[in-house]
C-alpha cells in the first residue's frame, strides 16, 4: 500500500502499533519520542486522549531524504485498543506498511491479547492487506510486572508462526528501540522488493534504519 509518487520523488510509509487496550502502545511511542534524535523526527501528536486512553490515535512522524533524492516520510501510528473503537482501528490500519502488535504480558490479559490479534486479522482482511505478507512483529510488554506469561511459553506459542517476538518494558524504555528497529528493518525489506530502494535511490537498509531509529546524541554517548 506504499504511497509512492515517482514524479515528486516522495514516499509515505505507515507503521501501526496495534494491540489490546492498555497494553502500552502509546507508551512505546512516548519512549521512542524521548530517546530518538530530534533530527528527522517530528513531535508526538496525541489526538484526543481521555484519561490516558487513546480515543483517536497517536502519531509520531519521521522525515528524511535518501541520497538519491527520494523524500521519505514515515508515520508511526497507535490505534485505540478499546474494543468499541473498532471503526477507528480500521481507518488507521488502512494502507499500513508494517505492524507492531503490542501484547500485555500479564496472564490476566491473555484473552484480550488473543481477541485483539483476531481483531487485527479480521481488520487486515477488511482493509485488503495480506497478513502473510505485511511486515509484522510482536512485542510482549510489561515484563517488569508479576504474574506474567513466561518467555518460554511465549516462544513456544509463536515460534511456528515465524513472527519475530520481543520482550519489553515500555514504561522503563526497555525493548522499545529493538522492537522499532526490527519493524523498520522488515519494512525496508518489504519496500525494497517493490521499489528497489537500494538500486534506484541508493538507500541501504542500515541507512534506512539509522535515519528512523537514531538515538539522540546524549543517549548515544552513554
Amino acid at each position, binding site marked *: 500500500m506504499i*504511497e509512492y509518487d515517482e514524479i515528486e520523488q516522495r514516499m509515505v510509509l505507515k507503521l501501526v502499533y496495534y494491540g489490546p487496550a492498555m497494553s502500552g502502545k502509546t507508551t512505546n511511542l512516548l519512549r521512542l519520542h524521548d530517546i530518538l534524535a530530534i533530527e*528527522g523526527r*517530528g513531535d508526538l*501528536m496525541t*489526538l484526543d486522549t481521555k484519561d490516558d486512553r487513546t480515543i483517536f490515535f497517536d502519531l509520531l512522524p519521521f*522525515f528524511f531524504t535518501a541520497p538519491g533524492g527520494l523524500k521519505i*516520510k514515515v508515520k508511526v501510528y497507535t490505534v485505540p485498543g478499546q474494543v468499541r473503537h473498532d471503526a477507528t482501528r480500521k481507518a*488507521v490500519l488502512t*494502507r499500513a506498511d508494517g505492524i507492531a502488535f503490542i501484547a500485555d504480558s500479564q496472564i490476566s490479559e491473555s484473552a484480550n491479547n488473543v481477541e485483539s490479534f483476531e481483531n487485527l486479522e479480521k481488520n487486515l482482511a477488511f*482493509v485488503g492487506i495480506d497478513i502473510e505478507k505485511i511486515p509484522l512483529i510482536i512485542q510482549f510488554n510489561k515484563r517488569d510486572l508479576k504474574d506474567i506469561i513466561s518467555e518460554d511459553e511465549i516462544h513456544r506459542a509463536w515460534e511456528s508462526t515465524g513472527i519475530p517476538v520481543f520482550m519489553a518494558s515500555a514504561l522503563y524504555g526497555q525493548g522499545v528501540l529493538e522492537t522499532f528497529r526490527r519493524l523498520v528493518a522488515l519494512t525496508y525489506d518489504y519496500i525494497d522488493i517493490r521499489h528497489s530502494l537500494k538500486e534506484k535511490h541508493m538507500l541501504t537498509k542500515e541507512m534506512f534504519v539509522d535515519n528512523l531509529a537514531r538515538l539522540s546524541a546524549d543517549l548515544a554517548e552513554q
Partner: protein
Amino acid sequence: MEQMDRIDFSLGADMGLKDILSAPDVLPLLKAMVEAGADLAAVTDDKGKFLWSEGNIPDNRELPSTVMEAITKRDHKNLETLSRVNWRLSAIYHEAEPIGFFFVSAPEALNEQFLSNLMDTAFTGLNIIIRNIVKRVFTTELHTTVVKRSYEELLEINKNLTASEKKYKELAETLEQRVIERTEELKRAYTRLLQQEKMASIGKLAAGVAHEINNPMGFIYSNLNTFWKYIKNIDEMLRFYSQESGHRSRESEELRKKLKIDFIINDIHGLIKQSVDGAERIKNIVVNLKDFSHIDEATDSEMSINEEMDNTIGVLSHEIKNRSAEIAKQYGQVAGFYGNPGLICQAFLNILLNALHSRDDNIIVTIKTEQHGDNAVISIADNGKGIPSEIQSRIFEPFFTTKDVGKGIGMGLTVTYDIISRYGGNIEVKSEPEKGATFVITLPLNGKRETGNGFYE
C-alpha cells in the same frame, strides 16, 4: 463488504503549508508583527516563495537571494544560520518535514534583541496555530472516515434488512394464498389416496368375485347348451308322436292343448336363448375382470403415442362409422414412450368408447397430443352430455356405471386408470353438464419402469 473496499479510507494524507494554513490564519499575525515594528513579515513555501506577507513586500516576492541559493542546493540544515542582523529566518516543519519558512526583517535601526524576541514569539504562535489546525484536520478526517465507514456499514445492513423485510412482507402477503393452495393440494392428494385405496380394495374384491363367478358360470353355460340340445330331442320326439296317425288319439290331443305344449316348445327356444345371452354377458364381465387383472403380464417396448392412438381409432372404425361420429386429431410432436402398446391402446380405447357414447348423434371427439417437458399429455374431449360433478370422483371405480344393464359394466375407466398409473402417469377429467367431457392423460416419458400400483399385485 466488497463494495465498501473501494472507498479510500486512508488517513492523514500529506499536507503542504497551503493545505494547512489560510490567509485568515496567518495575516493577523503578520500584521501584528509589522505593527510591532517589523519591516516585512512573510510565510513562504518550501521553495522560499511568499505565500502570505505584510509590510514592505519585495517585487520578486521571495526570500533574500542567499537563502534562495541555499534552498536550491537543498542545504536546509544550515538555513537558519543565514539570518542576518536585520532579518530572521525559521523553517516550518510539519511531520518532521520542512514545508516552508517564516521570515521577518526590520529596519536597521531596530534593536537586534527585539527582532529575535519578535521572531520567537511570532514563530511559536504560528506553530501553535499549525499544530491546532493539523489536529483539527486529523480529527475531522478520522471522524469523517469513521462516520463514512459506519454509514457504509449501516447502508449495507440496511440493504440486507430491507431485502429480508421485503421477503417476509411478500411471504406474509402470499401466506394466506399459499395456505389455501397447499390445503387444496393436500385435499387433492388425500382424495387421490383415498381413491387409490378404494379402488385397490374394490379391485381385489372384484377379482375374487370374478373368480368365484367363473366356475359356476362354466357349468351354467354348458348346462344350458346341453339343455337346449335335450329340449330339441324332446321336441323332435313330440313331433314324431303327433305326426304318427296311429298314435293320434283325441285324448293325447286334448292333453297337448291343455299343457300348451306347442307354446312351450316355442317359448323354450326364447327362454334358453335369453339365458344363454345372459350367461354370455356374465362371462364377458368375468373376461373383462380377468383382462384387468392380467395387465402386468404384458411386455414393454418403445412406441409412438400418436401411432397407437391411430391404431386405437382404427379398431373403433366400425363404431365410429355406425354413429357417424367425427374425430378431430390435433397431434403434436411427442417423444417415444416406453410401455406396452396393447395396454396403452386399451387405455385410449375405453375413453374413446365412452366419448362415442356420450350423446346420440353429431358426436365430435377431439384428440390432442403434445409434449410438456418430460411428459406426454393426451387429451380426449367430446361434445357429449358431460359428467355430473357429483359422480366425477366415482367414474374410475370398478363397476361404476350409469348405463343401462347390458350396455356398460363400469370397468372401462377402471382399466384405463390402472394402466396409466402403472406407467407413473395420471388421468384427470374435466366436465360440465351439456358441455362434454375432457379426459387428460399425462404420461412421463423418461420413467421406464411403471411405478403406479395395480390392483392385483
